[in-house]
């Protein structure tokens, strides 16, 4: 088998954990999820002793109900990389723990809810939760993985701590990896419409239908309005230290992550790509500006990519981000060769070789694609090995996507 560029595709030997809905996970995680900040400490104490056994902490801090947060938690707790879920409730918060537990149970996963006020407080709840996790571990360990193809993968991409090298090495290399993965039938998701400002017309011309093109342009216009109201672009001070002068410049670099495949659809957090292809994730809330910045940091974006089913997330950094994530592995692609030399322990891919002429975009793109596939047969990313399990979920509001967002194949 050959790719379009004639390069041989390495034999597929991924193995996945089969879920009741037919999806497969490349990890078998126990998610410990707090449903309000008041339950966070108890949840963390439960998960901490098992941190090297893929027991991950996620949660929602708010006490007010929010449809987006509910949907995100449902999508995350039934993510193919998750095998069992322990919910931690204080008892009096507004989060719909009954609905969430129901969705998890319907998905065929073991689920348990510990209510701290009913269980006798902190100490008793930690003991109860740890006993449940301890009982689940051998059950998950006994689950036999099954063969999994590249076409079953969903891969997301994000960039953070960008600098003037991101747009010429790491991002276009991630784009080449996306082109290859899409060519093999996988679904790939790029995002952060606030970092596509200035690229909307070029992007729209890649949509599979004219109607979708209009929707893509509208999503960027919405982001520009939202950020203008807030008074800041999606741009950090360190981006400027790294040579980026404006949001448009950062956007042109970020856009390169999408590669060159046709854009098959627009999805919102918690939506799953219906089939292989390239998708834009619209992360900016709908309606008037509420609840503050669309994504308060990179981790909030990664959580949304994972809620869309991403088995792994490609993270391109120039300045040197160190984050990983709960639930799905994060592949760290370092765009800047000086940063790589300083922080090699945190980086999976040295894309800065491209600047020195030591590797081509295609070579680094293939390396990224092969690395993603290797995660499906046991390989761990640097951030996984270092214990990075960052997670952030805040308030947002979205309208559901319309039929024109996902044109029929």
């Amino acid at each position, binding site marked *: 088998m050959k790719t379009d560029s004639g390069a041989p595709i390495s034999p597929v030997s991924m193995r996945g954990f089969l879920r009741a809905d037919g999806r497969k996970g490349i990890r078998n995680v126990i998610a410990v999820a707090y449903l309000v900040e008041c339950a966070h400490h108890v949840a963390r104490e439960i998960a901490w002793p098992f941190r090297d056994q893929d027991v991950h902490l996620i949660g929602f801090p708010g006490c007010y109900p929010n449809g987006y947060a509910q949907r995100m938690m449902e999508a995350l707790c039934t993510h193919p990389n998750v095998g069992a879920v322990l919910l931690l409730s204080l008892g009096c918060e507004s989060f719909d723990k009954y609905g969430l537990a129901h969705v998890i149970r319907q998905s065929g996963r073991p689920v348990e809810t510990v209510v701290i006020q009913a269980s006798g407080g902190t100490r008793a709840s930690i003991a109860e939760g740890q006993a449940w996790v301890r009982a689940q571990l051998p059950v998950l360990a006994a689950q036999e993985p099954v063969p999994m193809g590249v076409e079953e993968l969903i891969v997301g991409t994000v960039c953070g701590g960008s600098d003037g090298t991101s747009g*010429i090495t790491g991002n276009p290399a991630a784009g080449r990896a996306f082109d290859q993965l899409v060519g093999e039938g996988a679904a790939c998701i790029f995002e952060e419409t606030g970092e596509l400002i*200035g690229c909307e017309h070029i992007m729209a011309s890649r949509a599979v239908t004219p109607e979708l093109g209009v929707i893509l342009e509208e999503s960027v216009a919405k982001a520009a309005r939202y950020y*203008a109201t807030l008074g800041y*672009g999606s*741009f950090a001070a360190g981006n*400027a230290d790294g040579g980026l*002068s404006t*949001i448009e410049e950062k956007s042109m670099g970020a856009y390169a992550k999408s590669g060159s495949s046709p854009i098959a659809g627009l999805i919102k957090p918690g939506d799953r790509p219906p089939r292989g292809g390239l998708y834009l994730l619209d992360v900016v809330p709908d309606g008037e500006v509420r609840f503050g910045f669309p994504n308060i940091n990179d981790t909030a974006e990664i959580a949304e990519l994972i809620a869309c089913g991403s088995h792994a997330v490609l993270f391109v950094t120039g300045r040197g981000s160190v984050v990983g994530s709960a639930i799905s592995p994060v592949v760290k692609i370092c765009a800047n060769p000086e940063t790589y030399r300083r922080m090699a322990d945190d980086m999976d891919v040295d894309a800065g070789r*491209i600047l020195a002429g030591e590797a081509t975009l295609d070579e680094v793109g293939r390396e990224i694609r092969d690395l993603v596939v290797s995660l499906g047969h046991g390989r761990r990313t640097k951030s996984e090995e270092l214990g990075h399990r960052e997670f952030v979920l805040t308030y947002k509001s979205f309208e559901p996507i319309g039929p024109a967002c996902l044109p029929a194949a």
Partner: protein
Amino acid sequence: MMEAERRQDHEHDERVILLGPDDNVVVVRRRIDAGSLVRIGGRDVSQPKDIPLGHKLASRSIRRGEKIIKYGAPIGSATADIGPGEHVHVHNMKSDYTATHTLDEARARHGDVP
């Protein structure tokens, strides 16, 4: 990028890269030390300060108000006249969308982190 690099004529220093044929900036791909000469548009230009990786230099004269072109696309406007080889950044260009937030003032006021 490599394609763009091949297109690049020998008018520019090997420490910089022209990403698109219509660009009026080049990107520094190897750190340039203060005082060193950098060949831009066939002329040697002295750099008054260090230019780190990923930063931009004007590849020709740019007039105040003119668009800055990188990757063949506008990435903002010049806020001053810029000479060939000059550092192009937040001090002489601005976004046409939202203002750029930096910590330059805070750093000047309180000093850099040791």
